[in-house]
């Protein structure tokens, strides 16, 4: 294993390095994923661009229309952030479910999204929240909705010369209830076998808006707007909850790995969508 380690101390410096080395370079942030891949010799970049010395990329900034989270913000800081706990409790929950405290102290939001591991907690919560990712290169800046950013296994829409420079999470409707359920099939520190992030707004008993994302069960986390819309203007009865859960279970092409078979994952999706929606209906915030 031999590579050149670059440690630019400015954003333009990092972008220049990425533009110069293209596909041969990999970005190093917290290193929880890329160092493992390097150790296992699954990847062999010739250049590592460490972004840790670039100032001002770790922040959680609240604005009237939502929050901006810097790509170098650690998952631990997201888990502990009062702003995130108050306004986006499911994101605090999902961030706090990753690995163990040592991993969360090191892993960053930008790294988590750029790695695009299918068995990861934050992307599913972020997808339910309607997150937008800003990517910057020397060519300019663009904002990508998370559903278009995550393409497949370990594959994102990022070009080799682009760096994630901001993650924006729009504010949910006032009074929204949210939950994040992680189902593990092996040890307590394991990655999810399946996970569900759900957000619902209500007027009295009537559900006015529902967003459900299911993750770790297929290549990328998924929302099914046609199924979500079944809830709009309706009371979340047991029957309707069952129908929505069946919609997710039946329409997600589940994968098979050491955490469970495709059939098993389909059952786990059904059960956990039911549990998530019951929790929202019964009023947990």
């Amino acid at each position, binding site marked *: 294993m031999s590579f050149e380690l670059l440690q630019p101390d400015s954003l333009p410096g990092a972008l220049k390095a990425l533009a110069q080395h293209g596909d041969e370079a990999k970005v190093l942030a917290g290193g929880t994923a890329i160092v493992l891949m390097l150790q296992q010799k699954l990847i062999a970049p010739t250049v590592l661009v460490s972004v840790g010395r670039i100032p001002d990329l770790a922040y959680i900034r609240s604005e009237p229309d939502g929050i901006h989270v810097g790509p170098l913000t650690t998952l631990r800081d997201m888990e502990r952030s009062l702003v995130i706990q108050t306004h986006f409790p499911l994101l605090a929950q999902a961030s706090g479910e990753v690995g163990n405290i040592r991993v969360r102290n090191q892993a960053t939001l930008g790294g988590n999204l750029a790695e695009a591991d299918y068995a990861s907690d934050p992307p599913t919560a972020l997808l339910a929240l309607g997150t937008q990712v800003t990517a910057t290169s020397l060519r300019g800046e663009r904002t990508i909705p998370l559903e278009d950013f995550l393409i497949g*296994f*370990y594959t994102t829409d990022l070009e080799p010369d682009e760096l994630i420079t901001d993650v924006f999470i729009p504010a949910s409707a006032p009074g929204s209830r949210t939950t994040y359920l992680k189902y593990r099939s092996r040890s307590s520190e394991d990655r999810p076998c399946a996970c569900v992030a759900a957000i619902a707004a209500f007027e009295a008993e009537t559900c006015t808006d529902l967003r459900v994302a299911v993750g770790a069960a297929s290549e990328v986390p998924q929302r099914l707007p046609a199924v979500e819309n079944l809830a709009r203007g309706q009371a979340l009865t047991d029957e309707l909850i069952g129908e929505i859960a069946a919609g997710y279970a039946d329409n997600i092409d589940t994968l098979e790995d*050491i955490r469970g078979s495709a059939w098993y994952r389909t059952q786990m999706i059904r059960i956990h969508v039911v549990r998530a929606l019951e929790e929202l209906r019964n009023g947990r915030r």
Partner: protein
Amino acid sequence: MKIEGSFTLEAPIRTVWDYLLNIEEMSQCIPGVSALETIDTKSYRGELQIKVGPIKAAFGGTVTLLELEPPHRLVAEIVADDRRNASQVKATFTSILKSLADGTEVTYTIDANVRGRLAQFGQAVAQSTAKKMAAAFGSCMQEKIDAGETA
């Protein structure tokens, strides 16, 4: 690890069989295959490049046709290794062709034994990658058959 799938081609079973057995033409439809050489009438040597996100694999190896039951069933053995990733693959590929009213259904089963670094990368990724490759293979074969018919 077992990978199964199927695709349908709009062509008679005999035509599909002939195309499948025309190894040089057929291999052009497998994404990432290059440097195909014929060793003898039943064995071929070639290279296969696969990219999943940041991970790149480059396999070199041989394909040997073990059983041929025209035009219904073929069994091949694949033995390949990737030196950079220190990984080996040994796989049995079985394909069954079935005549339909308006075409031919091609069912495939790959029983693969992967050893080395790529093995830990996981079944989910391998299965999904194989399915995507099979889908691309199917549509490429259809194009070749259509082009052959009109030519």
